[in-house]
């Protein structure tokens, strides 16, 4: 995985609360056996009309959204299923961070494993971001700060281990496999 240190981008805003994994990627796109190319299916039901043409008023279809790497979303983003296809689709589309006032547990854990930063900010900062779509913000994973265009900086919580892995491009499986001797001892001691 490529290391992530800082991210600077304009934002795209989807203010709805409880944007669930079925909206992020509907189930009919889950019949894949690989991870690639899912950006096409991102927000499919919101993004395309029944005939497959882009809906002009959906935020990702507007010209100003092009190239944005930071999605600002409403409270409780990513609730619902455990499908890792959700962060795969967001990442494949080009997003590298989701900013919200709350992010669902399993989605957050999946995002961290795929180079997509889940950034949880306080309600006031969240409101400001929602009200200023297209604002250029900087997310610094080293200092765990998000900087607004006026220079204000807010810190965001992130698991220290996940942060370490992301900063250094470390794969968690490698870390876990290094624990195999302890795992073997556990199995022997507990009759597993």
């Amino acid at each position: 995985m490529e290391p992530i240190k800082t991210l600077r981008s304009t934002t795209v805003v989807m203010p709805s609360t409880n944007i669930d994994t079925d909206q992020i990627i509907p189930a009919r796109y889950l019949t894949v056996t690989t991870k690639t190319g899912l950006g096409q299916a991102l927000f499919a039901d919101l993004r395309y009309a029944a005939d497959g043409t882009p809906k002009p008023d959906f935020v990702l279809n507007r010209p100003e959204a092009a190239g944005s790497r930071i999605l600002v979303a409403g409270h409780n983003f990513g609730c619902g299923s455990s499908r890792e296809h959700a962060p795969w689709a967001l990442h494949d589309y080009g997003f590298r961070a989701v900013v919200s006032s709350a992010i669902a547990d399993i989605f957050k854990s999946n995002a961290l494993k795929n180079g997509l930063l889940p950034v949880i900010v306080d309600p006031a900062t969240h409101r400001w971001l929602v009200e200023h779509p297209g604002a250029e913000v900087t997310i610094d994973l080293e200092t765990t700060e998000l900087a607004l265009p006026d220079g204000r900086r807010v810190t965001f919580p992130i698991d220290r281990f996940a942060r370490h892995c992301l900063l250094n491009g470390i794969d968690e499986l490698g870390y876990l496999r290094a624990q195999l001797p302890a795992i073997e001892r556990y199995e022997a001691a507990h009759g597993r």
Partner: protein
Amino acid sequence: MPARTMFEKVWAAHEVVPETPDTPAVLYIDLHLTHEVTSPQAFALLRAQGLKIRRPDRTLATLDHSTPTRTEQIFGDEPIGPTDAARQVHQLEANAKEFGVELYGLRDPRRGIVHVIGPEQGHTRPGMTIVCGDSHTSTHGALGALAFGIGTTEVGHVLATQCLLQRKPKTLAIEVGGRLGAGVTAKDLILAIIGRIGVSGGTGYVLEYRGPAITALSMAERMTVCNMSIEAGARAGLIAPDEVTLAYLAERPHQPRPEDFDAAAAGWRALASDPGAAFDARVEIDASALEPMITYGTNPGMVLPIGGAIPGERGDPVLERALAYMGFHGGEPMLGKRVDVVFVGSCTNGRLEDLQATAKILRGRRVAPGVRMLVVPGSQQVKREAEALGLADVFREAGAEWRESGCSMCLGMNGDTVPAGATAVSTSNRNFEGRQGVGARTLLASPYTAAACAVTGRITDPRDLL
């Protein structure tokens, strides 16, 4: 030792390496369940890294999500469709063979929805840690197992090491007093709980359902409750093992040898939270006050007693958008609204008791003209039992479709979908936009309510037909 909650006991017994501020715990996983949709990329990772499955004996696979439910497609000559769904099914068959994992394959009499077959076949036991690439893994908590959904990367971690990196969650006690009234079910209870704490109210917590209304529930009902923990944002839900649990376990195909059963049972009873154990948070609900519940919006927290009126506050964009999607208006009553499709099934309400409840209402009645009703057993065993009891005949005679087991219309990726704009009363667990098909409008309810709506073609209080 200080008083501990059930969660703390199970967690502590599975810590291979405890967590530190810098590193998560390494948690041992006793049982890993897999299915065709969230496993292909994990097997591919193993293959790419030249790894084996560390404990194939603790891994079990089944086919349910993209697997069709029409008999001709399972036992006849009709192909599985669409083609990419067929590819996923065949991929799991190939992966199971290559990596030495037991698979309950397409025509296996033990096949079914992963959260139905785990308990049913006796794989799920109290005190275990259980994971699956599926968020409704919380179901298994009904037997006192710490069970939660994981992503595909984590599926790969468990396949390769039998462990997961996890931060310890907090605990939330849901104390349910009183007793459910006639016609009010476990489904209504969990919908009411989600309505109370909200769809993110359980985020970061493991729920423990306790109190007299919980101990009065059967195993199937407990599974319905724990199943929907994730709809409140909680990854896991637990219920302490008791005599009901032990009686259920004693009848399973896989269980400890008879001479070991009593020792195991003593250990299982000891899992219950100690008196005075501290929870991080607590919520109290009175079951006696509950009525049949139904959702009106696009998440399971948008729920009301069936006789109630849809909320109508102006200026709430979330509510307005949900009502626009559903084609509803604030202030309208739910009763009497037209229904196009009724789905009984899923890992929430696809067990024998759920089908018995459905049959209780359908017996001697017919599905209303213009309504399509689909009854899908949660497993092949449930199917056989329902057929032996004559329930399948009741469904067919009423005009409902009776299928092979699978996820079916719960998520609509196997050919069973709700058409755009149609209103479906469903015993499943998610009423998200597009969940049951593009533009489908889902109302979540109990099997009683679903069957009552099928008979009248309108939203109906099932107590009127019981």
